[in-house]
């Protein structure tokens, strides 16, 4: 029994170490993990073959990055003290903003984890501001999205996107908490009076290492199962964009300050789950999208239509429109600032 445990533990540790080492090697050896197909490679192919070639190209380079991202996401969710962080986040109002932004990336979350944390924070008295900040930052900046953005679009754009998304989310959360409709919404979540039991009602059971590793890998696998099908369908669409989307259009409309505005407009309503947005962004970058526009494009995430629809059901249209407009403004501002910062639009 003990021996079986040890073997199981070693095997699972082996998987995790494998991905970490391979990833480190790829980074050190600057082995590229993104698809290499250019428009020229794809254009000559028969229509049905384009997505296949593109997907194989992606799989050949990207499997390591994806494997690493899902594994690490699982490990983070299992081994970081998330309950402690959540308590910290729901403590004081001002500090909660900071905690929400800094800690959100390590909450690797699917929407069914996000929404309960959001309402939980409200009921716990953290206020609409920090709760909304969390709701906006977590999908944009979670560890899974971050790893893939870094690998596909490069660390400069990824870091700019992370910082900008964090600042934007705090600003938006703060602003909404000052609006009458934000306050009205917040007041619906009053705490139950008198609850001395709260601190003692959570006493987590400690699990042995092999079970914890298993939890981590299981969660990574679950995320992969949920995300990959849509991701691959998205890549099929991206392959056609890469092959047929006229370069002149991209060069004309997705560069310069005007390009930033167009990218912010497109990046939003046009629905793309974060990972597809990154791949599509890469295709557009290959076709000539400017860095500033790319940042604005990436920041369109919080106000895309399905995301807005699901938050609308919780917070109502007034808040959704408020943060939609604010997200657009912050996306444009971030794109412009990044464009000025790197010196090219």
């Amino acid at each position, binding site marked *: 029994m003990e021996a079986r445990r040890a073997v199981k533990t070693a095997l699972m540790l082996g998987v995790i170490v494998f991905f970490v080492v391979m990833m480190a090697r790829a980074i050190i050896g600057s082995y590229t993990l993104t698809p290499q197909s250019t428009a020229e490679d794809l254009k000559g192919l028969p229509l049905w073959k384009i997505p296949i070639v593109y997907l194989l190209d992606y799989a050949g380079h990207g499997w390591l990055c994806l494997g690493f991202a899902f594994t690490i996401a699982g490990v983070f969710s*299992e081994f970081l003290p998330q309950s402690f962080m959540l308590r910290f986040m729901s403590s004081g109002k001002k500090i909660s903003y900071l905690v929400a932004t800094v800690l959100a990336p390590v909450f690797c979350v699917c929407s069914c984890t996000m929404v309960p944390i959001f309402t939980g924070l409200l009921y716990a008295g953290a206020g609409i501001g920090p709760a909304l900040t969390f709701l906006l930052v977590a999908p944009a900046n979670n560890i899974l999205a971050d790893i893939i953005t870094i690998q596909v679009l490069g660390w400069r754009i990824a870091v700019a996107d992370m910082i900008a998304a964090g600042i934007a989310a705090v600003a938006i959360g703060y602003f909404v908490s000052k609006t009458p409709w934000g306050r009205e919404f917040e007041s619906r979540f009053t*705490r139950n009076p008198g*609850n001395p039991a709260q601190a003692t009602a*959570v006493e987590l059971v400690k699990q042995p290492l092999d*079970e914890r590793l298993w939890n981590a890998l299981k969660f990574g696998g679950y995320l992969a199962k949920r995300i990959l099908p849509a991701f691959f369908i998205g890549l099929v669409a991206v392959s056609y964009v890469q092959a047929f989307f006229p370069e002149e259009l991209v060069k004309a409309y997705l560069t310069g300050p005007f390009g930033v505005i167009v990218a912010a407009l497109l990046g939003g309503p046009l629905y793309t789950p974060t990972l597809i947005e990154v791949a599509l962004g890469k295709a557009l970058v290959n076709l000539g999208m400017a860095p500033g526009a790319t940042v604005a494009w990436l920041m369109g995430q919080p106000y895309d239509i399905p995301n807005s629809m699901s938050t609308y059901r919780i917070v109502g249209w007034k808040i959704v429109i408020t943060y939609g407009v604010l997200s657009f403004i912050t996306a444009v501002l971030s794109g412009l600032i990044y464009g000025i910062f790197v010196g090219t639009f």
Partner: protein
Amino acid sequence: MKLKVEVIGVNPPCPRCEQTEENAKKAAEKLRKEGFDIEVAKLDISSRDTVSRFGVIMSPAIAVNGVVKMMGKVPDPGVIERMLRKEA
């Protein structure tokens, strides 16, 4: 020996919450055959009552006799069973 198991998840349930509830029921079923008195209930994680009892927690979570024992993961039936034996 009486145990009250509460599976805390989102409503409508997501696949992970559903799996957790199923695993909890499996564990309870097995222990009932050995004479344990176990009640399994489902709680909505986003309700005011749940938050005021447990604070902000990750879904899915399992509470035994009113104390959250596991959260943010889907434990196998065997793991839940072992935990319940310990509590009993």
